[in-house]
């Protein structure tokens, strides 16, 4: 087989329609007689609802119906949690429409269904809700003490405590002993601020109740999970629900959810018997869609004086927000296996306390648990290097798994199949000009330059390709991690690939077409990739966790291979040859040693007419395959950045960024670069720009993009992205995930770089995002106090918010 497509930098088939917006985004849908939904949301973080008066709203022009939680109490079910991380996990009921109690600002308390979106919106103002204020729980450390409860009926803020201990698991030794007997112990508390996924297309849902099978279109990453959850939570037979994720404009984990809004739209459609649409406003999106990160990480890392790491103890407080969404509780635990990073050390313990607060629920956000873990270990490695006065790259070199040591079973119990940290690092150092920049840094320090230079290092790995089903089972997740594909050969020889993954901007229609075009030897343009509609792609587990290519792509390969096997049988029959003599190359089935052959298209038509088939042959080439990975795969890489800090204003500038990632074999280099670039920006943005901030009463202050800062191209330099190729051994394509790598690696690189610029001025830590004012305050504290600026307390740096300020 001649390979022409795999490795080609094809532009995405999807670009034209996704970028112009002239496509099937959910909000573009208009159905005959469609009604519109607007939602009343609680302005209070924590309150009891004492009365709701909807009389006036019901009488308003254009209003069809108003629903409160009481009205739908018997039929609204609840948003399910699919991940009981411990057998005794506690969780309050998560009702689509609150009935008596609201637990975060933005929680839905009533729904208006109008003839037009404007009529529904106007009527919101006519609804009167009486609340009795309750004290909100907003701080994780405070939540842990249970002095104030986010859900009084639950009796505690603690949802679950989940522990991994290498001594107990038999993957290593006892961490307490390691810490007690080591020469150096680094003890730090890092704060992962709350982030908002900030996808470009707001969430939107349309439900058409017509017919036996109701149809939901939704801007979701997970149509298959959504269908199952709707069926289970609302007791609708699964066969009576069809879910479609049409074109979806970004997700980043933020649409890996089963939402109250989806349930409400369905209830509204059922009640009115008409198609209903709900599309959130940007304000609702920022306050009501799930957030990410939000952890306090207490880290103890022990080592010898020579810098050999001996143990790591991690203690987390993880903010669930007010409720558990489908996988909220599992997010911090996905990080549990990654705190050891690329390093070998004997002892590890991880403890996570999942806590409820009166803030928006959290959930998956690009990287989900793994960026937090990588941040902690990569920050701690830099802090250790500083403590030992050692070059941070050298310290890493002393501790990482050497390439000849693969496969390597880590202290967290994962088996890393392949990798070459030396190669990626050496390449990155060279392209970055590490030695030259260190020399410049020295000069700037000596001359007391106003602008100091820092070099940030991050050598990461991550586990990709969620997930081997048996591993998910061992973590008490309700579902598996396989993926399904079908390859259909149409009579003309055109190919339809049906996949159970659900792309939302990644470009899988392009990359999967490339794979199939090569595999079956057909032109790229003759391959169509179908997805996201449970009537078309009946089986699937959707897109998240860098799984689409490494799990879904492998299912596609397996299905294509089955097509080839079937076609061989037909070819042998029609060419009157032995099946063993049929050879398949470049789209044609030939008889060994002859010039006789048939193309796949010819065979397809013969199968379609079925006039002359081998005995017992089912006349179809179409094939299904389900792939369940045996292991994760482990991309890795070395990211280096040069940060300039203006010591006078605290302004931080990213001057240069070089990354060398190893994601194994590459299907489409252009798509890979796109994923890396976008990933980098999201990770850099956590380090420098983004933070969801609540005030003391639990109101989201960053409720618009004026205050929730996302960067644009103008804020970033050109990135140098390069690769080394160490194929994954756990799939035959040799590929690894790439969707989250940039985000996971870049956050610690940036913060390490900022600190490297100012550490000699007495600053050891700065909270994320490293805003100019935080950097300036840290420098001022260090200069004034004479001591070191070590552990900033996030609550003390909360600004005194002036209600008259802002724009």
């Amino acid at each position: 087989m001649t390979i022409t497509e795999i490795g080609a930098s094809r532009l995405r088939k999807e670009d034209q329609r996704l970028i112009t917006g002239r496509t099937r985004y959910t909000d573009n849908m208009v159905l005959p007689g469609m009604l519109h939904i607007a939602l009343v949301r609680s302005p209070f973080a924590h309150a009891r609802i004492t009365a709701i008066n909807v009389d006036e709203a019901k009488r308003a022009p254009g209003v069809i119906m108003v629903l409160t939680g009481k009205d739908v109490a018997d039929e609204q079910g609840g948003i399910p949690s699919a991940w009981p991380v411990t057998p005794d996990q506690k969780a309050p009921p998560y009702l689509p429409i609150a009935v008596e109690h609201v637990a975060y600002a933005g929680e839905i308390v009533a729904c208006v269904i109008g003839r037009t979106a404007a009529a529904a919106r106007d009527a919101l103002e006519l609804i009167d809700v009486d609340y009795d204020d309750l004290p909100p729980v907003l701080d994780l450390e405070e939540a842990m003490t249970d002095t104030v409860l986010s859900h009084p009926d639950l009796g505690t803020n603690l949802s679950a405590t989940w522990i991994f201990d290498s001594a107990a698991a038999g993957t290593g030794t006892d961490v307490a002993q390691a810490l007690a007997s080591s020469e150096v112990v680094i003890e730090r508390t890092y704060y992962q601020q709350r982030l908002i996924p900030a996808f470009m297309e707001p969430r939107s849902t349309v439900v058409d109740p017509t017919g036996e099978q109701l149809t939901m279109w939704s801007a979701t990453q997970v149509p298959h999970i959504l269908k199952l959850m709707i069926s289970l939570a609302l007791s609708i037979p699964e066969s009576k629900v069809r879910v479609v994720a049409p074109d979806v404009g970004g997700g980043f984990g933020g649409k890996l959810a089963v939402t109250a809004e989806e349930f409400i739209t369905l209830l509204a459609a059922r009640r009115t018997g008409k198609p209903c649409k709900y599309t959130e406003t940007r304000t609702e999106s920022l306050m009501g869609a799930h957030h990410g990160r939000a952890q306090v990480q207490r880290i103890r890392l022990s080592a010898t004086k020579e810098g050999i790491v001996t143990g790591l103890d991690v203690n987390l407080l993880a903010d669930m927000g007010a409720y558990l969404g489908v996988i909220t509780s599992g997010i911090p635990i996905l990080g549990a296996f990654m705190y050891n990073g690329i390093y070998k050390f004997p002892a590890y313990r991880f403890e996570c306390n999942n806590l409820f607060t009166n803030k928006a629920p959290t959930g998956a956000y690009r990287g989900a648990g793994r960026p937090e873990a990588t941040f902690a270990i990569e920050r701690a490695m830099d802090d250790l290097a500083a403590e030992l006065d050692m070059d941070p790259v050298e310290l890493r070199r002393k501790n990482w798994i050497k390439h000849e040591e693969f496969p390597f079973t880590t202290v967290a119990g994962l088996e890393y199949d392949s990798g070459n940290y030396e190669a990626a690092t050496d390449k990155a150092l060279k392209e970055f000009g590490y030695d030259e920049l260190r020399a410049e840094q020295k000069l700037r320090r000596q001359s007391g330059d106003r602008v100091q230079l820092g070099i940030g290092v991050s050598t990461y790995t991550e586990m990709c390709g969620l997930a081997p089903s048996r591993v998910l089972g061992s973590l008490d997740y309700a579902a598996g991690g396989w993926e399904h594909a079908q390859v259909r050969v149409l009579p003309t020889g055109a190919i339809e690939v049906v996949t159970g993954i659900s792309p939302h901007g990644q470009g899988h229609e392009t990359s999967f077409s490339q794979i199939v075009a090569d595999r079956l030897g057909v032109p790229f343009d003759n391959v169509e990739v179908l997805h996201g509609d449970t009537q078309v792609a009946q089986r699937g587990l959707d897109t998240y966790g860098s799984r689409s290519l490494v799990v879904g792509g492998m299912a596609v390969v397996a299905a294509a291979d089955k097509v080839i096997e079937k076609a061989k049988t037909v070819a042998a029959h029609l060419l009157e040859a032995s099946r063993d003599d049929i050879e398949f190359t470049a789209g044609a089935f030939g008889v060994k040693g002859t010039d006789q052959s048939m193309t796949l298209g010819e065979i397809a038509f013969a199968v379609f007419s079925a006039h002359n088939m081998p005995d017992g042959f089912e006349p179809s080439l179409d094939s299904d395959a389900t792939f369940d990975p045996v292991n994760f795969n482990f991309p890795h890489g070395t990211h280096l950045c040069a940060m300039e800090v203006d010591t006078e204003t605290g302004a931080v500038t990213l001057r240069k960024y070089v990354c060398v990632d190893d994601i194994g074999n590459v299907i489409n280099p252009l798509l890979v670069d796109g994923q890396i670039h976008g990933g980098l920006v999201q990770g850099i943005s956590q380090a420098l720009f983004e933070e969801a901030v609540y005030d003391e009463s639990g109101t989201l202050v960053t409720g618009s993009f004026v205050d929730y800062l996302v960067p644009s191209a103008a804020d970033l330099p050109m990135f140098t992205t390069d690769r080394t190729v160490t194929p994954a051994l756990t799939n035959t394509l040799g590929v690894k995930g790439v969707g989250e790598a940039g985000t996971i690696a870049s956050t610690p690189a940036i913060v390490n770089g900022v600190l490297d610029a100012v550490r000699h001025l007495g600053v050891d830590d700065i909270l994320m995002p490293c805003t100019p004012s935080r950097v300036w305050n840290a420098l001022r504290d260090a200069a004034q106090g004479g001591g070191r600026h070590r552990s900033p307390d996030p609550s003390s740096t909360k600004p005194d918010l002036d209600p008259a300020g802002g724009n």
Partner: protein
Amino acid sequence: MIPVAFDYSAPTTLDEALTLLADAGEDGKILAGGQSLIPVLKLRLAAPHAVIDLGRIDALRGIREDGDHVVIGAMTQHHDVATHPLVAEHANLIARATQTVADPQIRHRGTFGGALVHADPAGDLPAAALAMDAVFHIVGPGGERTVAAADFFVDLFTTAVGDNEILTEVRMPKKTAWVSDYQKFTRVAQQWSIVGVAATLRIENGRIAEARIALTNMGSVPIRVQAVEQALIGCAIEEDAIARATASVADGTNPPSDLNGDPDYRRHLATVLTRRAVLNAA
């Protein structure tokens, strides 16, 4: 986001606009580029019954000279202000400040007059207009009146323009051969000023002969700092001297506190940025 329903009209003359505005009473609102008003309406922070669009009144748009003044029509788009040769020659501070406003799309829609009447304390043009000794021409039911920049900005989002009045144009004495700089401090490229400093100077024989300094977002209205302007006179273009002359620029100011910084930080920034603005201009 859907605003409360309103009546929309797009008159072609100023008189017509004034009549419509008067008829609307307190419920009328002028629409210029809509870059600030439309978000306000969509967030339902305001709900006027009548929106009167000035976009079709050609007389309100354009840039011209009038003797020793440059005149900018209220409806002139930021992009035109930022790139016009007359502005570059006689009011280059205005050009520099305008270039920092938002992004190209918004600069092609938002207007000079709209930004000034909106009077956002974090907006960039009020301080620049103040430093330029601008004079505002306002028409209303009672005819035309003029207001000096010092009296124009009354409070947060409040100017001397009354409910039934329209800003028609802004006149600025030419500052030909003056040099200028606008230092805008932000965290991302497209952001409102955390602090901004407008500086324009006349330099004679290597020394500052005249100076105008005004601050953005250091209070509810832009602040002109005459003490520093005085201190700069006679100053050589040399960092230490300028640092000394500008050191007190934030004294007595009461800037806002928000996610971008507290008052202390803003006062510090104003001091650093003033020094940088003067040095950059010179």
